[in-house]
């Protein structure tokens, strides 16, 4: 290790402009039950 970077701001690229990747590493997709409950909360909040 160590260490690069302090405080710099990364600018991302749109996914549709990036070619040749197999998968996206990041927040996992959520279960249907969670999505439905979240949708209900948003509806009630409106």
């Amino acid at each position, binding site marked *: 290790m160590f260490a690069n970077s302090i405080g*710099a701001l*990364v600018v991302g690229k749109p996914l549709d402009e990036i070619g040749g990747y197999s998968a996206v590493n990041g927040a996992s997709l959520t279960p249907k039950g969670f999505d439905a409950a979240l949708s209900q909360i948003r509806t009630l909040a409106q």
Partner: protein
Amino acid sequence: MMQTRELLGCKVSVHLGEGVEAGDLCELAFAECERIEGLYSRFIAGNELARVNSCLGDWQEISEELAGLIRVGLEAGQQSFGAFDLTVKSILEGWGYDSDYSLTEGAVGSVGGVELDGRRLRLSAEIDLGGLGKGYAIDRMAEILKDLPSVLIDAGGDMVGWGRASVDQAWKIVLEDPRDLGRAIGEVTFEGRMAVGASSPARRKWRDRHHLVDPIRGEPARGMMGVFTQAETALWADVYSTALFVLGFERAQQILPTLNVEAILVASDGRVFKSEGFRGELYRVADGVNTDR
């Protein structure tokens, strides 16, 4: 070729390199993942995890496999000065992240003690293996598929891969921008066998809550927007991504050199830190200072 199943509360995919024939190995790998979820998910009633959680205060005999997972959780808790804690279940459920996804506030939960003596366990608070179960499941799938030349197992935040997508193309994954899920902040090209993890509340968030708990404050962890990790196994990549997220941007940087992991940290204010050994690139930075050197 790719096969996908809905498991572990998300989608799990197995990508095979060009020309790789897996026979029934993919089915066996998915079956193993389903077995692990069946035993250790807190969202499934009546499993081994539910049984141990129902006997708070009593010493109880548990399986060697569960003991091993709890041992990892305890070790991670020590390494991260309590940032990783298996006993956050009641806090999450108090916020409504329960088996019914009520997402409504209930009783205030708290963390507690875990005593493990070989295969004997005593709990003072219920445990949740959400901080390591997915990584473990991916490792077990990888073990079943290990004789295939080129595989990428993808559960979103947790991945293991080896070999190449094709003769001309290595496995390449992009690092999702936690501020904008339609963008990526960088990419990783797999060299040899690699295990990666990620933690971000970008999808599992509701009201002012999300699923990454600061066990010391009993609140959603603040200060970090996303963490990407690389470790020897998906299990430890998963564990460390959670622990580093909870620690926050500055504290995580202090502790990183003591851990067997490489990481990219994205702070809530957009600052990014990349450890020197992290294999991959950040695309570019706004202020013209390239941090990826």
